[in-house]
């Protein structure tokens, strides 16, 4: 069943186009990734889905409800976590959760069951009485997550939830998300981390307000461009001259330590190898989402 359905969504800020003809569907229990660089329209899209921002045109339905007609009802089905973790710094962990429970009309009984479960799941049970401002970044993020989950939303909307959080907390966080998706919560998550994109069931790549790629991460990575990793041979030096020679062969070039990563133009593998095998060790590698993204943006 489609929990979220977006058709031909467009958003203008004054005359500036922020979102251009966005369409996608999300099924029950799917993790839906919105990937894109800063300013690509991720936050705008999420804010429209939560009802904080109004769209310019298009159709959106969430849990079968039309956002134009039943916007107030939709709010009970969604949980939204904004980029800054949604916390009251002087309130304790428990008070923060209780506040959101109160706002959503969660009964005491439900709160007891669900609150305990969420606190244990995230490992925050021991910090119930700590003020939110005294939590670490990772704990803040988890508290924010609990606050948005306390009313059992069918659709969870997360705006770059792992921004500025340490790698261990990031991994924990994604495990929690996966647990909830298995229980049937649809999760919409925006991210600029490409490795997180690979953990989603479905992704869209957003660039300048348009969807440039849509699909599941495995399909998306099936591109016909070759990705090569180059390492300089002994005694060779790299200079601008060489870079200039490489440029016509590639759609993207990036430097990672001693390695140079290039995405070749279509069918350019042989000619490239011929040209540069005296200068580099050349290794073909499997493309990542980032490569796909770079190729698309390079078009």
């Amino acid at each position, binding site marked *: 069943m489609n929990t979220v359905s977006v058709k031909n969504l467009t958003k203008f800020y004054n005359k500036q186009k922020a979102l251009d003809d966005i369409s996608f569907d999300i099924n029950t229990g799917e993790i839906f990734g919105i990937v894109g660089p800063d300013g690509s329209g991720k936050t705008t899209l999420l804010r429209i889905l939560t009802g904080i921002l109004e769209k310019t045109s298009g159709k959106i339905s969430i849990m079968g409800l039309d956002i134009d007609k039943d916007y107030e009802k939709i709010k009970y089905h969604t949980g939204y976590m904004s980029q800054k973790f949604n916390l009251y710094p002087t309130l304790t962990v428990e008070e923060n959760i209780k506040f959101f*429970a109160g*706002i959503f009309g969660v009964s005491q009984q439900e709160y007891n069951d669900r609150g305990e479960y969420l606190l244990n799941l995230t490992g925050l049970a021991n910090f119930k009485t700590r003020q939110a401002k005294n939590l670490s970044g990772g704990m803040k993020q988890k508290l924010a997550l609990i606050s*948005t989950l306390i009313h059992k939303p069918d659709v969870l909307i997360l705006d770059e939830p792992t921004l500025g959080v340490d790698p261990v907390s990031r991994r924990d966080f994604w495990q929690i998300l996966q647990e909830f998706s298995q229980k049937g919560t649809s999760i919409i998550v925006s991210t600029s981390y490409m490795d997180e994109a690979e953990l989603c069931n479905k992704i869209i790549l957003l660039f300048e307000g348009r969807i440039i790629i849509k699909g599941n991460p495995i399909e998306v990575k099936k591109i016909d461009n070759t990705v090569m990793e180059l390492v300089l041979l002994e005694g060779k030096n790299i200079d601008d001259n060489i870079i200039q020679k490489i440029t016509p062969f590639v759609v993207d070039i990036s430097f990672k330590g001693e390695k140079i990563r290039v995405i070749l133009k279509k069918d350019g593998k042989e000619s490239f190898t011929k040209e540069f095998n005296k200068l580099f060790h050349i290794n073909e590698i499997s493309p990542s989402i980032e490569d796909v993204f770079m190729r698309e943006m390079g078009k």
Partner: protein
Amino acid sequence: MLNFQRIYALFKKEFVEIVRDKRSLVIVFIMPIVMILIYGYAVTFDIKNIDIGIIDRDNSSLSRGYINKIVSSGYFIPYKDAYNNMDENIKALRRERIKVIIVIPYDFTANLKKGKDVQIQCIVDGSIANTAIIGVGYLQVLTSNFANNIKMDFVKSKGINSKKFPYISPEIRVWYNQELRSTNFIVPGLISTIMMLVAALLTSLTIVRERENGTYEEIMSTPVTSAELIIGKLTPYIIIGLIDVLLVTLFGVLWFHVPFRGNIITLLFFSFLFILCALGMGMLMSSIAKKQEEAIMMTFFSALLPSILLSGFVFPVESMPKAIQVFSYFVPARYFLNVLRAIFLKQDVTILMLYKEALFLIAVSIFFLVVASKVIKKRKL
């Protein structure tokens, strides 16, 4: 339909935030007391101890008697260093060591004895108009008093029965503030200023703070309506505001011995209406401003200054230009001030007697709250 569980959740949250926020606590409890202490002493319209230079060219027992009358009134302190030295006195006036110079002419006694008019020269520093006007007023009263006494003596010495002598003196009676103490007049004014400051300042911070915390976005994504948001957020401040009114009133009565002749219910009723106005204004600032500092500045200029300058606290509304008088209808402190002065100084003042003020306060508070909720609704982010 309002949902009371949501309102209660907002109320509780807001209350805990205020109690845990040091800045708010200072605004709530320390600032009112400090303000009433400082202003209760400093803002006084009773002018005493005006420094005066004296030139006595007559130097007779009569002229010394006149000087004595002025000095013993307690309103003037003679500048003795420049006694009878005109140049020194003028210098002193110029550097603001003294405010007034009086010159008693050579023929003071002689003319008085002949029954002729006597003129005493009085030079006043007008650069501080308030002091000058009041000082001159004192001198006039003291002088005519002195003159009357001389007349009486003269009449007596001629053997005429003074009771038959046509002698008219005004008998002035002051009601409500018999001692004409300006603290009695100022403390009520201070209460309204302090309330405006506390209530408007605190609320002006609330929504901006949510916006800065990023929590505003979440609140907006929840089913909370803007009416629920306003009610839930404002109720704690109404309670705090009423506590503050009582605190400051108590201070005024116990510390400054201001009489409290009305009743406490009337006071609380009008305080409630006034706080509602102040909160509405604060809420409006809060929903317009982007940063806490901005909200504070806006509150100062649009809520605090008018309630000091345009409310009749410092300058009577009647003496303002017409255009500004119209503007002052929107200053809630104007009504509250009337009410407070009545409650403090007049007996048996009831809510019904002050119905005009009540209606105006209700109208102004509704105006601000409605505009604030419209702005909140419109400016979602």
